[in-house]
């Protein structure tokens, strides 16, 4: 099996609302998968369930064939899966450089300092954050925080899957391009991505396949051009009143 991340029957209920209703998805190693769907479709819930922020009511998450269902986020990170948040969570009172050190040393714990320094230097350069390396992260713009958050994920040694929740929302086109370049570069180095986004232009550009979620379920899967022609998807996005 070349599937690196698989979910089966993933279910989460909030009172009477089925936020996730038996979600099954399978990511092939090395792919960049888009996850799209109208607001309230359960995309962020799905990400939370996969990455251990919330515990599913039912179903399974497999990473490289081993079950990570219901583990805490730090355990899941140790298994090789990290996420980013829609509102970038950076450590405001740490410097940009320190922000990149936290995930490295939390996982490596060893004195692989030379390796860490080299990696930090590389990511700072690629992310164009180098001039800000010794500034506190709270002085960064929203887009720069997104970049920093993504780089922090790339710092964890041995991570195979990156789940990014709305990484392109509300950031300027230049930063967006930088972030896309970073993602493509990590992907070429072997990382698998699941990207939740509303930005169809970006999804079209970097995701060969997309998964569509509607009302807590997987509604369709395939290349975006194909999906965009399907009537149920179009209806869910645009609403029936337009017909």
């Amino acid at each position, binding site marked *: 099996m070349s599937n690196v991340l698989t979910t089966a029957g993933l279910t989460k209920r909030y009172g009477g609302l089925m936020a996730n209703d038996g979600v099954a998805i399978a990511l092939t190693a090395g792919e960049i998968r888009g996850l799209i769907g109208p607001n309230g479709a359960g995309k962020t819930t799905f990400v939370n369930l996969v990455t251990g922020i919330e515990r599913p009511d039912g179903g399974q998450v497999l990473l490289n064939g081993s079950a990570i269902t219901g583990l805490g986020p*730090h355990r899941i990170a140790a298994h090789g899966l990290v996420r980013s948040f829609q509102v970038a969570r950076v450590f405001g009172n740490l410097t940009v450089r320190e922000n990149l050190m936290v995930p490295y040393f939390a996982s490596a714990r060893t004195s692989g300092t030379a390796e860490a320094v080299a990696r930090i230097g590389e990511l700072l350069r690629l992310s164009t954050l180098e001039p800000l390396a010794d500034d506190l992260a709270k002085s960064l713009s929203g887009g720069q925080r997104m970049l920093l958050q993504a780089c922090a994920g790339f710092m964890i040694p041995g991570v195979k899957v990156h789940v990014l929740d709305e990484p392109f929302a509300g950031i300027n086109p230049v930063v967006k391009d930088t972030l896309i370049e970073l993602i493509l570069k990590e992907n070429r180095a072997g990382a698998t991505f699941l990207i939740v986004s509303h930005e169809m232009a970006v999804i079209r550009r970097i995701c060969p396949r997309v998964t569509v979620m509607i009302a807590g379920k997987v509604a369709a899967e395939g290349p975006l051009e194909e999906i965009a022609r399907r009537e149920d998807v179009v209806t869910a996005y645009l609403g029936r009143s337009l017909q």
Partner: protein
Amino acid sequence: MYSTELLIQTLISGVMIGVLYALMALGITFIYSIVRMINWAMGEFYMLGSYIQYVAVAYVLGRNYWWLAILISTAGTFLIGYLLEPLLIKPMHVRPMERRDDYATVVTIALLLMLRSLAVAIGGPYQYRPETNLPIMWVGPLPMEGARVMASVFALFALALFYVVISKTWIGLALRAMAQNRVAAQTSGVDVFRFDAIAFAIGVALAGLAGALLAPLFLVYPTNGAVTTVKGFEIIVIGGLGSIPGALIGGVLLGVVESLGAAFISSPYQNAYGFALVLLILLVRPYGLFGERGREA
């Protein structure tokens, strides 16, 4: 009766007791920053430290090795804290992770009562005094009890060590990250539950150290931590909750104000000058000298 010499002496003794108060305040603020709860049992860990000091000096090591007993007391309270946190505090923190539950704080009140009762049950309601071999020492022109001088020296050393651990080691980096964003720390791979225990242990060890250091001066008995805990919380109000510089500067400030009041106004009211300072701070800066106005959660 004003004299420059008296003023200098008062300032010195104020700073000396202030750094010991600062240990308590630092412990409270540090545990609050990481574990997100107020530990009301801080005074009981102070008490534990003082009892360990007494037992170690009186029954095992002898008065010449008081300094070794200090290290043992500190390590002992650290260990007790490290074992108690996963047992009593962690189960009180339920998902979702960013909501730190108030039950944890209530549990520390139960812990306070339990430890005090335990001290009465084991040691009785008596006062003990661990000996030291320290002579009277001269601090500038001022003769002082050796135990008091060494208490301040040890406290300063502990504060310096704390600073190095927090700012220079990766453990410190992980703790600072956790204090700022717990969930992000966790998704970065930081084992937050282990660090909760470490932070709790470091915090109570600071109290245990203060207890061991002050035991020859303020004695050992079941409720001896109460006064120092009150001082600790006064400092938190002065310096601002969650602020490490606030705890240090607030501690020294409180020590100096109390000493000045006792020397130049009237000594029986020593504790009242601290409270006056607290009231003043509450009027002018309710969030403390270094506190931030809007705290998260």
